[in-house]
C-alpha cells in the first residue's frame, strides 16, 4: 500500500526538458557568464589579469568612457521613450480599429502592417535611408505634393533630429507586434461582457476606456517590457543607417553601438573585449533592473479578470 502511493521519479520530465535546457545553457547562459567573467579581467601585456571592478571604475570615472556611456544611455532612454509614447498607443489604436466589426479587409490591413516586422534591419535601414535621402529620396517630393516641402530637412544628418527619426523608423518597423498582441487580447474579451456593458448604456469610446482597456492592460504591460528589452538591446538599425560611429557627433549612439565599437574596435580603434564585456554587463544589469521593476512592482498590481 505504502509502496504503491510512492510515485516513481518523474524521469520523463527531465528527458523532455533536457534538450531545451542544454541548448539554452550552451548558447545563452554560458556566454552570459563568460561575459560577466571577461568584464572582471584586463589584458596586461597580452595576458588576461584579474582586476576586480577596475573596468567598471574606468567606465564610470574616466571621462573618455563615462561621457560616451552617459551619452549612449541618454540616447537609449530617449529611443525607449519614443517607442513607448508612439509605438504602443498606435499599436493599441490599430488593434482597436482592426477589431471593429464594421471594418472590411481586416486581414489585408493586419498583414500589411505586420510585414515590416519580419523584414531584415538591413533592408529597413537602407530603404529608409533612401526614402529620406535629400538627393534621390521620395520624401522631399512627397512632401512637396502636399505643400510641406519647406519642412523637409536631411533628418538623418542633423544632430537634433537623427535619433528621433531613427526611433520613428523603428516604431514603423515594430508597430505590428503590439498591434497583434492587443488585437488578440481584444478578441478574447467575451461578447457577454460587451453586451452587458451595452445594456448598461456604455458604448463607443467610453466602452473602450472603461471596459476594453482595463481588460487588455496585462497585454500592454507585456508589450512595454518587450519594448524595453528590445530597445536596450538595439543595435542593428543604428548600425545599418548611421554606421558604427553613430553620427552625427555621436547623437545616435546607443548602448549597442557603443558596445560594438568597444568590443570589436572600429577602423584604427583596436577592439577591447574586456571593456566591451563591461559595457555588455551594464546593459544586462540595466535590463535586469527594468524587468525586475516590472515583475515585482507593476505586474503584481495589475488586476486580472477571469471569465
Amino acid at each position, binding site marked *: 500500500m505504502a509502496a504503491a502511493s510512492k510515485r516513481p521519479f518523474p524521469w520523463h520530465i527531465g528527458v523532455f526538458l533536457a534538450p531545451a535546457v542544454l541548448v539554452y545553457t550552451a548558447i545563452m547562459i554560458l556566454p552570459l557568464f563568460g561575459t560577466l567573467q571577461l568584464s572582471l579581467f584586463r589584458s596586461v601585456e597580452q595576458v588576461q589579469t584579474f582586476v576586480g571592478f577596475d573596468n567598471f571604475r574606468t567606465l564610470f570615472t574616466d571621462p573618455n568612457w563615462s561621457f560616451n556611456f552617459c551619452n549612449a544611455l541618454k540616447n537609449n532612454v530617449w529611443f525607449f521613450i519614443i517607442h513607448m509614447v508612439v509605438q504602443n498607443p498606435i499599436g493599441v489604436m490599430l488593434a482597436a480599429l482592426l477589431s471593429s466589426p464594421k471594418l472590411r479587409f481586416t486581414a489585408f490591413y493586419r498583414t500589411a502592417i505586420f510585414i515590416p516586422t519580419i523584414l531584415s534591419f538591413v533592408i529597413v535601414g537602407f530603404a529608409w535611408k533612401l526614402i529620406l535621402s535629400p538627393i534621390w529620396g521620395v520624401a522631399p517630393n512627397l512632401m512637396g505634393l502636399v505643400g510641406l516641402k519647406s519642412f523637409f530637412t536631411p533628418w538623418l544628418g542633423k544632430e537634433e533630429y537623427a535619433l528621433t527619426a531613427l526611433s520613428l523608423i523603428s516604431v514603423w518597423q515594430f508597430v505590428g507586434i503590439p498591434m497583434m498582441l492587443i488585437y488578440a487580447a481584444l478578441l478574447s474579451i467575451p461578447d457577454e461582457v460587451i453586451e452587458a456593458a451595452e445594456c448598461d448604456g456604455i458604448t463607443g469610446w467610453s466602452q473602450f476606456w472603461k471596459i476594453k482597456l482595463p481588460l487588455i492592460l496585462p497585454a500592454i504591460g507585456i508589450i512595454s517590457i518587450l519594448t524595453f528589452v528590445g530597445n536596450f538591446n538595439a543595435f542593428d538599425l543604428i548600425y545599418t543607417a548611421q554606421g558604427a560611429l553613430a*553620427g*552625427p557627433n555621436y547623437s545616435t549612439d546607443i548602448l549597442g553601438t557603443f558596445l560594438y565599437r568597444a568590443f570589436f574596435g572600429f577602423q*584604427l580603434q583596436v577592439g577591447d573585449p574586456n571593456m566591451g564585456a563591461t559595457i555588455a554587463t551594464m546593459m544586462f544589469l540595466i535590463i535586469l533592473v527594468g524587468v525586475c521593476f516590472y515583475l515585482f512592482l507593476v505586474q503584481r498590481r495589475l488586476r486580472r479578470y477571469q471569465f
Partner: protein
Amino acid sequence: MKTKFLTALLLGSSVLGFAGVASAADVTLNVESWRNDDLAIWKDKLIPAFEAKNPGIKVVFGPSSPTEYDAALGAKLAAGSAGDLITCRPFDKSLELYKKGNLADLTKLSGMENFSDVAKSAWTTDDGSATFCVPMASVIHGFIYNKEAFEKLGLKVPETRDEFFAALDKIKADGTYIPMAMGTKDLWEAATMGYQNIGPNYWKGEEGRLALIKGEQKLTDKDWVEPYAELAKWKSYLGDGFEAQTYPDSQNLFTLGRAAIYPAGSWEIGLFNTQAQFKMGAFPPPVGKAGDTCYISDHTDIGIGLNAASKNADAAKTFLTWVASPEFATIYANALPGFFSLNSTAVKMEDPLAQEFVSWREKCKPTIRSTYQVLSRGTPNLENETWVESANVINGTDTPEVAAEKLQKGLDSWYKPAK
C-alpha cells in the same frame, strides 16, 4: 552480401585515397581581404598569372566587406580558421597582429629589397627591426574635376587656394553644377577626403606629422587648425542636404555629372572611369600662394602578410615573393588604376587619370595620413575623433578652434610623447 560489403569498402577507400593524393599535390592558399571590390581582378588576372608560374599552388581570394573585415579577421585568427595570407591594414592594426604572433616576420623574405623604408614604414615595428607585411599599394589624395564643366564655365585648374575658392564661387554663381560633391553623413569623407587631403599643405607633410608624434607640435597649433578653417568654408559649396549625403551619394552626384569637383582619393579612379560619361581631370590640393612647395597625402594603404599559424608557409612565401615582384606591381597597378605600386621599380600605367595622380609624386612631397602612425593607439581614438570633428566643423556644430581643442584634449589624455 559479403562481396557487396567488400566492394563498398574498396570503393570508399579508393575515393578517400584519391582525395588524399590530390590534396598532397596541390597546396591551396586562402587570402583574407577587405577588398571585395577586387574579387574579379584577383580571379581573372592576378591568380591565373601566379598559378601559371607556380603549378601546384592554388590561391583562393576570400574577401569580406571592409567594415566587417577587422572584427571577422580577429575572430577567425582567434579560432585558428583564418586563411594563410592576410591582407594588412596599415600601422597599428597589423602591428597588433604581429605582436600577438598572428603575423609572421617577413624581414628576410626575398623580394623585400624592392621596397623603400618609407614604403615599408606602415608594416615595420617601431624600432625598425622587423617587417611583417609586403607593401602592395598606396593611395593619393587630390581633387577630381569634371573637365566639361570647367570648359563650359571657362575655368582653369586652380593651383592656389584663392584660385580654388574663386572657381568654386564661379560654379556656384552659374548654378548648373553643385560646386563640390561631398557629404558629412558617413563622417569619414569629411576627415579623409577633407582634412587629410588639404591638411599636408598646411602642416608641411612629414615635417608636421612627425613633429606631432614627437610632441613638438599640437593639434591646436595654427598649422593644424587652419585646414579646419578651410573645411568650414566648404560648407556653402556642398549640395543641398549634405548632412545626410552618404559616400555613395557623393560618388553618384559626381559621376552623373551633377557636381563639378570631387575631393577624392585615387582609389575612385577605377569606378569613375566606368561610371562617368564625361572627361575627368585631377589637381593636387591647392597651395597657399603660387610657388609654394606642395605636399600630398600618398598613403600606404594595403599590404599582405603571412598568417603565422599557416600550414602552407613555404607556398605562401613563394606567393609573397611574387607579390613583391615588379610583375605583380604592373598587373595590380594597371588592373586597379588609383592603387599605386610602392615597388621601387617604376611601373608603366595606361590610365591618364592615374598618371596625373602619380605625376604629383615628382613635384610634391609625399606624406601619410597624420592620425595613422602611433597617434591612434589609445582611447579616445584620434582617427575616429577626427572623423567626428571634421564632420562637426563642416556641419557648423563646432568651430575649427573648438574641434582642434577637443582632439588635442583627447590625445593628451593618453598620449605622452617620448621626450
